[in-house]
């Protein structure tokens, strides 16, 4: 999942970025309102974490501008202002959630997961599943049936991306966009490496192969028996 953090406090931005990256998120940072708008229009983020008090356009106006541009990315507003009026102003500007500083990283992560479940087509359970493959977004446990599978953070992120919409064909670029931040995502053959590793961990020990290569297009999660039936 690709997250944009808009925060002008360098320590807060750096450590949230690190905390999210350790959970497998791909994180980009913006420090001003103007940068935030540039990032958000250039890249399809899955989540935006937005501080209210920013140089060059405060968070509320950034949020309103994004919503006016019909950008529907789930957005969590982050601020040290805890008055009821402040929270109302944030939500009315188009934020989906509101977290008051100081906050625990655990709570931020849980709220971000909740925001990801909130879209119309999004799975409502923190556990994503396809066939006998399960992935728990909260605990990061992945299993094939009863057999637990250990994945690295990036492998987890690639699998989570595919599992959110089983059957949909993801191009290398769209997988990379959701899993890597700006500094690495242009190397799209990196995706192939992770897919190969994932296939080895998920499919090799099982008669049912799930990770399918769609030639010339990309990858998807698909039961090959479904093809036979079709």
């Amino acid at each position, binding site marked *: 999942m690709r997250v944009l953090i808009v925060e002008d406090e360098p320590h807060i931005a750096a450590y949230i970025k*690190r905390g999210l990256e350790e959970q497998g998120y791909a994180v980009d940072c913006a420090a001003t309102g103007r940068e935030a708008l540039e990032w958000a229009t250039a890249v399809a983020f899955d989540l935006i974490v937005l501080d209210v008090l920013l140089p060059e356009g405060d968070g509320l106006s950034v949020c309103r501008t994004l919503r006016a541009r019909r950008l529907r990315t789930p957005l969590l507003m982050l601020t040290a202002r805890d008055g009821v009026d402040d929270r109302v102003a944030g939500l009315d500007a188009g934020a989906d959630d509101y977290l008051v500083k100081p906050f625990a990283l655990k709570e931020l992560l849980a709220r971000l997961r909740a925001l990801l479940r909130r879209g119309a087509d999004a799975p409502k359970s923190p556990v994503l599943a396809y066939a006998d493959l399960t992935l728990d977004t909260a605990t990061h446990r992945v299993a094939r049936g009863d057999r637990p599978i250990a994945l690295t953070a990036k492998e987890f992120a690639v699998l989570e991306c595919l599992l959110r919409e089983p059957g949909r064909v993801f191009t290398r670029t769209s997988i990379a966009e959701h899993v890597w931040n700006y500094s690495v995502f242009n190397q799209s053959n990196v995706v192939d490496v992770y897919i190969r590793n994932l296939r080895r961990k998920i499919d090799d020990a099982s008669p049912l192969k799930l990770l399918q290569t769609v030639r010339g297009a990309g990858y998807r999660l698909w039961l090959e028996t479904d093809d036979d039936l079709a």
Partner: protein
Amino acid sequence: MTWPSLFRVRFGLWVAGLLLAALAAFGTLVYFSLERGLLQAVDDSLRLSASQTLTAVEYENGRLSLGDSAPPETGVAGLVGRDLTIRVMDLDGRLIQALGEFKGWPVSAASLAAIALEQPWFETITDAPEHTPVRFYSVPIIQQGQLVGAIQIALNLGDVQFTLRRLLQALLLGGPVLVVLAALGGYALAARALSPIDHITRTVRHIADGSDLSARLNLPVVNDEVGRLAATFDQMLARLDGAFRRERQFTADASHELRTPLAAMQAILSVIRTEPRTAADYAQALADLNEETDRLTGLVEDLLSLARRDGPDAHLTEPVDIADLLTDITSSLEPLAEAKGLALTCTAPANLCLLGDRDQLIRLFVNLVDNAIKYTDQGSVSVAASVEAAQIVVVVADTGIGIPPEHQPHLFDRFYRVDAARSARGAGLGLAIAHMIAETHHGQITVTSQVGRGACFRVELPRWMPPPTPP
């Protein structure tokens, strides 16, 4: 019952009571003066009739009689026709001749005694309680210097009594009606006069209950007592409202500023503690934490020094040489200026002193010079002291980005930032503290600036002349 309606009732009763007392005094006066006047008139008429009658009295051979020489309309018969009773009697009170309604009434001993002394005598006699009283006038008859008898003229006092009774009735019946009307009128007047007060009370209660200081009385502008009260009250509310708003804003700003380093610290800690880290990671995290605690400490110190303004005055007893002070400050800030390639100059005449708190004065000028360096990218920062009248004037001028005019009036407000962001670190308390220190030193601080040309802060402080040293 609420206070205002009680007051209305009391006011109505006061008016009624006052009117009652006035009516009682006036009624009594009218009643008795009328009674006296009417009795006087009766007595005058009796006296006149008596003198007429006396002319008709004849005394022949030791016998008294009422002659009838006078024409009937003026004579005794005429008198009797006017409801008078006329009696002629001897010295023992035996009636010799009597005419009129009360001719048979007994002769009083008092009248006989007065006649014996040759004195005329008035008396009022009532024979029975249910009858009207009768006024008798007794006059001695003296013939050739000798007392021979007396005449008595009597008149019924019924008319007088009737008039007086009517007056009393009018007073006793009309009085209470007037008093009740006055009470109601007083109540209504008080209610009318008090209705703005009621309005004020309701507004005040609304404010007290809901602490909504934006409410105003907004009574129509009338320059009477209540109008002035309402206007004064509205002015007071406006000031309170402003003070509360500033205080709320301050609290919100302060909590925001305190939370930000705390949030950074919590972010650092909660990320670092999720899993075991390398020693380098821990060292970096501790360094980051240290930065944030420094920031928090500075902020708390700034807030405390602003809060101390409400405390007792600083001890402004230490003579401070301004040249020493400014030279110290500029030389210690020189490295900052040098790092940005700025020229930092300081000019101050020697032997210029003021009484103050040296630490606070250092803080004042460090804040100003530090700000000047922070907001200047090229050119110079100059600090210059001079004397104007009894004031020491220190001007800190830079060639930096300047301050837009719309920000200048708020520059010394707590937490005020020209740019909304913390592009330059600091909570926006530095100038507020400088302002506070200048004020506690009985001085002032002002700013002039042109955007792009630089800013100029001018501090005026009272000069202190050391007592002349003995030669």
